């Protein structure tokens, strides 16, 4: 939660360097991070405090008024003004003739509908202080007539954007940052206002009942009578505006000002609308409240409220109610300064979707001690700005406060820092942060100041305090010595890497897809959604199920890229997610997350047979390169393995009989559901297929004697499998070294019952050069066998 802190305000509480960037650097290194230092200044000149002496209607225009305004030395100026909110006796910003305003306008004497205007009255927006432009900015009655507006505050200032960490809500305040600065630069805090005991004037007439002291461990209230609520002083409006808070009226402004100063929320009620009874209780089911944001909230019984005798007047710690709000008509106010349970505030705020500066602070946990000083500071400021008489303070506590004490063994400090720090240094650093330190030996006894009672409770917390204040940049770095070990080495990553390299070398492009897919993608591959792992709170309807296959994601990529590609070759190496095989028996059986290698390829115009052979070639190359470069993969025709097409796909049978993944042609219906209307081949293989193979096959010397190469063309029946054809050919002669298929074509002259198959045959004999007679004999025998077995004819 970013906190905007005017530099001049900080300066009231602690010494600061002249250059705020220096402080920002120091703070970032030792304390809260300063995100930005912004220079701010008023962009107007020639604006003074004027007092409205009389107001008349403009003779020639219904919507204009003619005001006589007293300025320097009692001079009366006639000013034409269109804003309806001015009244006689008000102090207002008066731009004299010659004044310049933000945006560059210069005020001049000019006639407005026949009446001369000798200057202008300004709205907050015209002065650039904040956004209000509905009326003239009204100044506090104490403003001195004729004083230059810029002299009432800080014409120039800086704003630090401080980002306190979530465990330090105490830093979201002027004094909180001042404490950090004081500790870092080693200068004491300046005392400023609100420290003196508030003198009791009359006894508090309020009856306060806290019905749930767990959710409201402390509640302080005070009545202030006869206040005059109006505009707060220029300096206060200026600071609030620079801190990002819009000024409302003097009482509300005081509560906001003190909130920024002390980091402790307060709330002000109109005492006459509230009555004398305050009850802090859980809401009754169905109770509603119109909050200050203008919306009505329906409350539940776990929401804490502050109520009058009958109804809620505020959602405790979150937002006040509209009916008891302080307005300029208010004459008596009740100030509340309390502590609420962080978990309850957080839950209420979330359930109502209502967040405020107050709720954001309370939900992080504030000290039950901080209301004391905060409330007296608020009373002081109300007095100063609005007058009035306050009652005694009603203070209800769940428990007496006793400060927390933590033991810090110095050995633990040096164990974490890697250096031993003198006891005196440790004490000095802790004291600067407000800790009280006792103990002389190897263990210090440290008392935690109240504003840290939510984040410091153990020695480690103190070690961090000492270390950061000392400065991490002062610790020299050391590289840990390396202990090499091959124990527990996972082969996954190097195997993935080899496969990735192989596929990239084959021209495949690696893609990276979300692990979650939509239900229709499961249905497209006939995967029952009930068997997929499902997300309870998906981000969108596309991202509901964890994918049990990589192929739907890849198919979607094909669709997205076909518009600009003739050929697509893509792959992904990623986990798939399956419910545990022994579902329901123990934590680790909840799911399985095997890594798979998936790839698809397509080429516009290619036939299924071509694509099948291309993808099979990829799988074979991967297998030969990464598993076994001698053995052929053992493929088996598979059916019913969506999204692969029946009869056009194969499963790899591993030597141990296990399923080693699938490759082949994707089912056109599956592809259609992605909008792909052409043939696509794919593979999906488990990473485990490739794990565990190291080393090389035995060396084979290159042949010394020449081969005889012959081409043949055979007419084959479609019922004969290629693999059987080759098996018979090889079994017929030992001279046939290898067979390479180079063409398959369907010849009309052969009809449907046969197709033509053209091959390169390589004959070789070990230890001698083959004669052509030998080869012809062998080939004749082979053809005879082929004809006998399969009816194959030489063409």
């Amino acid at each position, binding site marked *: 939660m970013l906190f905007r802190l005017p530099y001049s305000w900080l300066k009231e509480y602690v010494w600061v360097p002249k250059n705020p960037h220096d402080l*920002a650097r120091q703070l*970032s*290194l*030792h304390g*809260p*991070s300063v*995100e*930005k230092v912004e220079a701010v200044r008023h962009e107007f000149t020639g604006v003074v405090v004027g007092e409205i002496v009389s107001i008349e209607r403009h003779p020639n225009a219904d919507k204009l008024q003619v005001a006589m305004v007293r300025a320097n030395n009692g001079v009366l100026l006639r000013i034409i003004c269109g804003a309806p909110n001015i009244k006689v006796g008000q102090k207002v910003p008066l731009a004299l003739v010659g004044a310049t305003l933000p945006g560059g306008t210069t005020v001049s004497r000019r006639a407005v509908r026949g009446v001369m205007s000798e200057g202008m009255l300004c709205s907050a927006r015209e002065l650039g202080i904040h956004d209000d432009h509905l009326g003239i900015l009204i100044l506090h009655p104490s403003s001195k007539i004729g004083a230059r507006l810029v002299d009432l505050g800080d014409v120039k200032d800086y704003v630090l954007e401080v980002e306190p960490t*979530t465990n*330090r809500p105490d830093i979201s305040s002027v004094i909180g940052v001042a404490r950090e600065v004081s500790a870092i630069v080693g200068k004491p805090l300046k005392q400023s206002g609100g420290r003196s005991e508030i003198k009791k004037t009359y006894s508090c007439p309020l009856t306060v009942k806290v019905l749930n002291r767990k959710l409201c461990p402390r509640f302080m209230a005070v009545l202030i009578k006869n206040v005059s609520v109006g505009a707060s002083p220029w300096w206060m409006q200026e600071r609030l505006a620079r801190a990002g808070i819009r000024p409302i009226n003097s009482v509300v402004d005081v509560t906001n000002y003190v909130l920024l100063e002390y980091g402790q929320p307060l709330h002000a009620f109109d005492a006459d609308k509230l009555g004398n009874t305050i009850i802090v209780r859980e809401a009754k089911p169905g109770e509603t409240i119109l909050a200050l944001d203008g919306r009505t909230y329906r409350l539940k019984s776990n929401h804490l409220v502050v109520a009058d005798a009958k109804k809620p007047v505020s959602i405790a710690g979150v937002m006040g109610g509209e009916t008891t709000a302080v307005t300029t008509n208010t004459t008596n106010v009740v100030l509340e300064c309390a502590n609420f349970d962080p978990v309850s505030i957080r839950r209420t705020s979330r359930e109502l979707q209502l967040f405020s500066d107050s709720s954001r602070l309370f939900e992080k946990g504030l000290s039950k001690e901080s209301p004391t000083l905060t409330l007296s500071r608020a009373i002081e400021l109300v007095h100063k700005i609005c007058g009035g008489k306050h009652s005694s303070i009603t203070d209800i506590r769940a428990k007496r406060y006793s400060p927390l004490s933590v033991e810090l063994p110095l050995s633990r400090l040096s*164990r*974490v*820092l*890697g*250096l031993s720090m003198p006891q005196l240094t440790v004490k000095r650093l802790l004291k600067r942060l407000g800790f009280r330190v006792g103990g002389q030996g190897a263990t210090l006894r440290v008392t935690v100041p109240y504003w840290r009672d939510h984040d410091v409770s*153990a020695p*480690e*917390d103190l070690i*961090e305090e000492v*270390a*950061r204040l000392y400065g*991490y*940049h002062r*610790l*020299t*770095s*050391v*590289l*840990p010595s390396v*202990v090499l*070990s091959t124990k*527990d080495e*996972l082969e*996954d990553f190097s195997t993935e890497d080899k496969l990735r390299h192989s*596929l*990239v*070398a084959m*021209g*495949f*492009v*690696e*893609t*990276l897809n979300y*692990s*979650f897919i939509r239900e229709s993608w499961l249905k497209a591959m006939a995967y029952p959604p009930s068997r997929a792992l*499902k*997300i*309870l*709170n998906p*981000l969108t309807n596309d991202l509901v199920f*964890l994918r049990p296959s990589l192929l739907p994601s890849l198919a979607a*990529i094909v669709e997205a*890229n076909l518009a600009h590609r003739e050929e697509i070759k*893509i792959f992904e190496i990623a986990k798939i997610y399956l419910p545990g095989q022994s579902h*329901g*028996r*123990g*934590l680790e059986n*909840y*799911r399985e997350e095997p890594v798979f290698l998936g790839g698809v390829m397509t080429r516009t115009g290619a036939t299924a047979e071509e694509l099948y052979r291309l993808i099979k070639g990829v799988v074979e190359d991967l297998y030969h390169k990464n598993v076994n470069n001698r053995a052929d993969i053992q493929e088996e025709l598979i059916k019913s393995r969506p999204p692969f097409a029946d009869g056009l796909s194969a499963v790899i049978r591993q030597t141990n009989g296990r399923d080693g993944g699938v490759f082949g042609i994707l089912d056109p219906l599956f592809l259609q559901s992605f909008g792909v209307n052409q043939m696509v081949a794919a593979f999906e293989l488990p990473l485990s297929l490739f794990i565990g193979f190291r080393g090389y096959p035995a060396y084979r010397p290159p042949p010394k004697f020449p081969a005889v190469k012959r081409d043949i063309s055979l007419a084959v029946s479609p019922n004969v499998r290629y693999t059987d054809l080759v098996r018979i050919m090889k079994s017929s002669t030992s001279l046939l070294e290898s067979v390479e298929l180079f063409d398959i074509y369907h010849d009309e002259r052969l009809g449907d019952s046969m197709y033509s198959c053209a091959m390169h045959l390589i004959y070789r004999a070990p230890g001698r050069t083959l004669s052509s007679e030998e080869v012809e004999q062998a080939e004749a025998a082979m053809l005879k066998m082929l004809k006998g077995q399969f009816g194959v004819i030489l063409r």
Partner: protein
Amino acid sequence: MISLEELKNLPSEAESAALSAKNQQELNQIAIRFLGRKSKLTLFLRSLKDLPKEKRVEVGQVANKVRSRISEIFEARGRSLAHSLKPIDITLPGISPRLGHAHLISQAINEISAIFKEIGFKRVRHPEVESDWYAFEALNMPPDHPARDEWETFFMDRPAKGDGDGKRFILTPHATSGTTRALVARKLPLRVINIQKCYRRQSDISHVPMFHQFDGVYADEGVTIRHLKGVLEYFVKSYFGVKREVRLRPFHFRFTEPSFEVDISCGVCGGQGCRLCKEGWVELGGAGMLHPNVLKAAKIDPAKITALAFGWGVERVLLMRSGLEIPDIRILYENDLRFLEQF
């Protein structure tokens, strides 16, 4: 008539003339100049008959040698012209063997794991569908702790049954859940790095619902903040370049104490401060010394063992290093081939 001296120079003149010929036709014309009826050589040979006999034989032998030498020169040049190649426009485009492309994130993961391997961090693999015990509880974030809200966590629709009764399953929002697993499952000293997919319910120009983190842990006796600084500096200088500086800023995480934000000096302005950095520094990610409660949850004695830990986004370091200037992180996951094929 030329002198004997001039005669002996004729072969070298012929050689340079022959080389100047660009084709056979030009060569023929040059050959005529040297060997034709009106050539200096022919005229010289004709004049021989006027010499006394002894001299004629001697000079004649020289002249004939010159003539056969010149003939050889023209024949050789003729042969070389016949075989000569046509020049090539060397600006013609190459024909690509069509290498594929590894994804940018894979490339980054490979580099990152290689750097940490050098300093003894072994890469490990952990589940992504994780129980909230590993992701939160063991990391000092008990159920209902507000810190859990900082992660926009995805929950699985079914709770665990049997031994895991009551445990909620989630998609892990940070690779630190792997750190807990490593602490629980492995023996000390432990020095591992877990690079994995993580998930959070967010999607905008700087967030994706699935992203990658690398999370390292080193637990042993005597591990200190100074070691943490050493490891972080080693990574930053290896990955971003030796000129980049590292600083640790105090921060807060539930599972480390002390906790840091790690900043590196801005690569654009060199640390002077510019539009793209904060006062000369850019934020890299979090780090710290593991909280004693985390060690205790893994049944490790925090009185003996200390541990450093760090966890950063792969996408973040990738985008911070390079000149990629990718305006929207989601582009990394769109799988447009026109994007993927650029790297």
